[in-house]
Every structure is written in C-alpha cells, then in structure tokens.
C-alpha cells in the first residue's frame, strides 16, 4: 500500500510530516521506539532538503511516498532542489563536533544508524532520497 504527502518547503511543515508518518505506521503495530526512529529518519532528510536544498521557500514542494512491502518499508522523499552527494559523505567524529561546539552534523549520522539502505538519485527534474527499512510486515 502507498501513502503520499505533498507539502510546502517550510520548517513548519516538519510537524505535519511527522504526524503523517506516525499515522501511516500506526496500522503496522510497531513498537513506539521503532516508529519514533523511522519518523526521525524521515524528519532528518526532510529538514535537510527543506532548509539546505530549498531554502525554506514555501512556493516549493516536497513529496513523501511511503510504500509497504512484505520485507519492509520504503520512504521516498523528492523535490526540485539540488542533490546532496551522499557517496561523498564521511561521518564526522562526534568528539570533534563537541570540541568545535557544533550544532550540526548529527542528522545524517542518525539516518545512517536507523535505515538499512539510503539511495539518492535524479528522476527527471527531481532529486529522490529512497530510504529502506527491513521489517517483517506480512
């Protein structure tokens, strides 16, 4: 089953994105901690896309598609912003972030820990993030 959301690229949309993901996952009867981690991973990618790739422009939109299959859940986040090259990303050392008093740098670390695979690709004029979480659903 597929679930779709199209929403404006504003920071205020993040709450609605989390509500949508939480509601979609409710029927799967997953533990609350598991649901929260999946919501968090989607929230992190959406926040990155809204803030860094779409400059919080309310005239631009972000699409979220959640698909359930027997072996897991796929979350596809797409928008017209420039892609971030995930293959060039190297995880920062958390102790270094502390030393540098940094506030950022944790989002993708969380997503990498939570999801089983992350793909980034272009589809026509859209940048697509495909996150997959292995779960026994059927």
């Amino acid at each position, binding site marked *: 089953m597929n679930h779709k959301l199209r929403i404006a690229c504003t*920071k205020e949309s*993040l709450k609605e994105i989390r509500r949508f993901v939480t509601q979609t996952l409710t029927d799967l009867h997953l533990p609350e901690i598991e649901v929260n981690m999946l919501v*968090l991973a989607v*929230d992190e990618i959406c926040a990155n896309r809204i803030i860094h790739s779409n400059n919080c422009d309310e005239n631009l939109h972000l699409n979220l598609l959640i698909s359930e299959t027997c072996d897991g859940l796929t979350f596809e986040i797409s928008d017209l912003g420039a892609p971030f090259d995930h293959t060039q990303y190297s995880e920062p050392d958390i102790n270094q972030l502390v030393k540098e008093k940094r506030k*950022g740098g944790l*989002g993708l670390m969380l997503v990498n*820990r939570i999801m089983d695979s992350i793909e980034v690709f272009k589809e026509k004029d859209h940048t697509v993030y495909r996150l997959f979480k292995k779960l026994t659903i059927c």
Partner: protein
Amino acid sequence: MNISIGKEEEIYLIGIEGDLDASSCINLDKAISEAVSAGEKKILIDCTNLNYISSAGLGVFMSYIQDFENNKISMVLFNLSKKVKNVFQILGLDELIQIVDSKEAAKTLINES
C-alpha cells in the same frame, strides 16, 4: 514547543514541552544561552513533556558540552520518555550528557558536582 524557566534555590530549571526540532530548537538554545550569560552553574532540563527530539535538538545540547566543561557548569536532563532517551542513545550522546530518571535524582547529581 514551549519553554518554561524556573529557579529552585541555586538551580536553574528549564522545562521543555512539545517537539524539539529544526523549527523550534532556537528557543532552547536561547534559554540555555541566557542561563550561561546570567552566570548559572547548575542547570536542570525537565523533559517530562518533551514529546520528540531531532538532531537539531541534540545539536543544541551537544554545542554546550565544551563550554560547560570549561566553565564548570553542570547540566542534567531528567524524566525523558523511552523514545526520546533512545534518540540520545543512538549516537552515544547519553554518555556525554548527564541523563537521569527523576527530578530528585537530577538534583542529587547536580548538587554533588
């Protein structure tokens, strides 16, 4: 998200209610920054009504660890829900930030430090 500020003897108490995300984390940053500017040395963070935290919220706490160490300021978070505490644990931030189960335990810990 709402932030409440209180003072109990020499302890500065910050309460967080709602979702701490990229949109709201600036309010927590401001509250902690004001406590530091006012010379507070003992800061308790009441997470009883904290429903959600993202990396932006974690980042605010992380960015003060070094300053707190340098200026001998103690900060203790208490009463986190299991799902919120889990987010700290994913990256091991629960080992860098003091987290306890209750306000009483938080007061004991901060008065010992």
